[in-house]
């Protein structure tokens, strides 16, 4: 999955070929954009990026690429297999599984993205503060410990049980679940960074804490944060599916991959296409995000790249 140094050198030697394809190998290892090159030269990550971009584009332009609305019911043509009209077949209500899969990408990606940003933002804020201010550290981290004491999905369903089924609530519940995870990571990097000399200097010249936190500490933690966030996206998408299966997720009828797989599993023997396509999309998307995360880690962390 990861190119070794020697492979990279070989790739450099074969520069001509590469340049025609990517012109990436012109980025020297010293450049701050070198990681992009490493990432894109990782075949698994590259394929995943292409796949994920396709899914995102399909999701964004969903109305243009589908011929039926995702909620358009047509019981006369229910439970039909894949055909020219219905590429992915139809479900129990005669809804187009292809449309629903494409629109489902919107919700799944929305949940994944919103949770990533929510947990990323809150987790960063908590982590930075806890790591930077000694006095805040213990109380804040104890609270995080408290949230982390629950198995994630259990906490999420307990929250959903109280809030009720809605996409917004799924996002809220999953943000609560994933925030401590991010906070712990950010606290760790902050603890290291704040002892660096340039932070001392910045403080000495009278820079304000929030500026220091924003400009230096946060930026310094960005790489591990980004890597962590990709995994949060992947887990959030899966968690949404599990919540929907348990009846504590996005309301029924809304096209999400989780809902579709969960509704379709009852019909697995009768209409495999109801499950296969959204299931495959879910599986491949989560896998792609994980592979991108791995690739990013390798690309952003020189130590791991050495492996």
């Amino acid at each position, binding site marked *: 999955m990861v190119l070794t140094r020697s492979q990279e050198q070989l790739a450099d030697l074969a520069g001509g070929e590469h340049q025609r394809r990517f012109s990436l190998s012109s980025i020297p290892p010293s450049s701050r954009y070198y990681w992009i090159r490493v990432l894109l030269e990782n075949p698994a990550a590259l394929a995943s990026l292409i796949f994920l971009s396709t899914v995102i584009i399909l999701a964004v332009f969903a109305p243009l690429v589908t011929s039926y609305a995702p*909620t358009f*019911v047509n019981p006369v043509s229910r439970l039909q297999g894949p055909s020219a009209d219905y590429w992915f077949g139809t479900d*129990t*209500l005669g809804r187009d599984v292809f449309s629903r899969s494409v629109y489902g990408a919107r919700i799944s990606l929305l949940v994944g993205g919103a949770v990533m940003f929510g947990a990323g933002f809150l987790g960063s804020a908590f982590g930075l503060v806890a790591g930077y201010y000694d006095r805040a550290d213990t109380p804040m981290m104890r609270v995080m410990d408290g949230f982390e004491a629950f198995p994630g999905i259990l906490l999420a369903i307990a929250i959903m049980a109280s809030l009720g089924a809605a996409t917004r609530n799924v996002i809220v519940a999953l943000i609560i679940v994933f925030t401590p995870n991010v906070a712990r990571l950010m606290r760790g990097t902050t603890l290291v960074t704040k002892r660096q000399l340039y932070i001392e200097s910045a403080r000495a010249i009278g820079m304000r804490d929030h500026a220091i936190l924003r400009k230096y500490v946060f930026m310094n933690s960005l790489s591990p944060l980004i890597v962590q966030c990709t995994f949060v996206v992947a887990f959030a998408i899966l968690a949404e599916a599990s919540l929907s299966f348990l009846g504590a997720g996005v*309301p029924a009828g809304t096209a999400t991959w989780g809902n579709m797989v969960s509704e379709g599993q*009852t019909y697995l023997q009768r209409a495999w296409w109801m499950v296969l396509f959204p299931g495959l999309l879910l599986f491949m998307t989560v896998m792609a995000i994980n592979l991108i995360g791995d690739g990013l880690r390798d690309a952003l962390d020189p130590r791991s790249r050495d492996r």
Partner: protein
Amino acid sequence: MTSDHERETRHATSFDWRLLTRRTLLTRAVALGLATPVVGGLLAACGGDDDDDDDDDDTDGGDDAEPTEASAGGDATEADGGDDDEPTEEPDDSDDGDSDGDDPNGLGGEPQRGGRLIVANAGQPTSLDIHQPAGGRTPQLIGWHMFETLFTWDAEYGLAMQLAASYEASDDAMLHTISIREGVPFHNGNELVAADVIATLDRWAQLSPLGELLYGSLDSIAEVDSHTIELTMSSPIGTVPQLLARGGQGAAIYPASVIEASGTDFVEEYIGTGPYQFTEFQADRFTLLTRFEDYVGPDGEPSGYAGARNAYVDEIEFRPVPDEAARVAGFQAGDYHYLEELIADQIEQMQADSNLRVATLPPRSYGYIGLNHAQGLMTDVTIRKAVQAAMNIEPQGLASHGEGFFQLGPGIMLPVTVWDSAAGSEFYSMNDPELAAQLLEEAGYDGTPVRWITTQDDLGDYNSAEVGRQQLEEAGFEVELVVLDEATLATTRNGQDGWDIWNGAFILRTDPTLLPYLSSCDYSGWWCSPDKEAAFERLLTEIEFDARYAAFEELQTLFYEEVGGIKQQDNYGIMAIRNEVRNFGPNTTLFELEPEFTNCWLES
């Protein structure tokens, strides 16, 4: 069982399409009156007394509405009703009319004793105390193997004696004497005596609506001798045996000692007189019943619940398997012999399996869309008419039950009853979005969203709501589909706030007085008008069937003209059982109420 009155009520309560033609039913039904509400009440209570027990995801709460994946008796084969102008089917005698040549009852062969029969329930009972409300269907399915009643029903819905040995009523129906069979042991070894019956009835009357009804007219209950009781009424009541017969929250006879210990709380011990006795319960795992070797049952050929109960199977295990996909898979894999709550879409894959016996049964429920007349948009009759005009029932049926598992028809009483009527059929399934749009304009509809409440706990109802939503939207309505869990749906539906439309289903009623939206202005939907009340008054008080039928037809017409609600499709029942279970099917037990495993055997 001896008096003429008894015979009459027996006829009156019959709705067995297998033996009677529609015409003979119509003539015999003249006697309808006192008896039918009781049977109907029994049916209603049996299927619909669930409340927030979500284990049983087939019932949608309330004491009156009943979703659809229910089984019914008989066989759905095509027969010409002759004078029917609606696309209704009249199933005929399934003994000779079985079109696919497969015997759904698994008849024939020599009975074999032994083995353990395993049943997959959709949910787990909290208690098997039959008298208690809110138990749902599962406790009934399990409990009636352990408990018995004084009277029960035979295959033709005639009354039969179970624990009773004789019954006599005075001519004025004020004094009722019931003697019980001698030498009937309880599972604890004690003999059943009159004191047990009296203790049971006193408790039952405090818990069960049927009991409350009976005791409402009761002056005193007395022990004549150790095996005879006497009920003295304060007002005449001709249906004492029916009220005491098996049914939802029915008068299952417990030992007096058990009742003393529990009062009206849930009983601590399950001790009955039935052919199976309670052996073990493990939460979320199983309920195990074993044959009661000292059982002393009534004699006679088994018929419905009546007659001999042979208890061929040694043990019956009931397992809660809540996940539908897992339940079906386990059934196909042979883990269970029978499963509750089967949806029609699963039937197809089962039909190919020679290890399974699958049957489609005639309708015993119909889909219903309730409109909130009390508050909001639907208070305007023009808007309601627009809803009516927009409805196309066939896709709703397809979505909720699948092709071949429903039929269309305007009758708000099922065609298997004597009350089938085409009145108002011009307003049934109009499928006229243009007219709907026109009506909306006329009503000055301003685009306020219609709040349609539904639940995903019942997939059929939910699918139906999705289709209905789309039909309304095509006509120009704005619709907000509010998906609630089952319990919340029931609460919301019974209050006037926060909703405009709900959908569910009504189980078979034998008499229209038992349809809550007809009988009461207080029922969810609050359909009320002077015409309706007047027509209902006649339905209730007239004695002659023709006059009652006329009143009912007027009510059905009003239902369509005033748009009391929307009647959807009639839903077929379905049955699936593993083939090694012999002598079990729509003809060997009263499937439409609760199947019973007392006379089936396992073929090795």
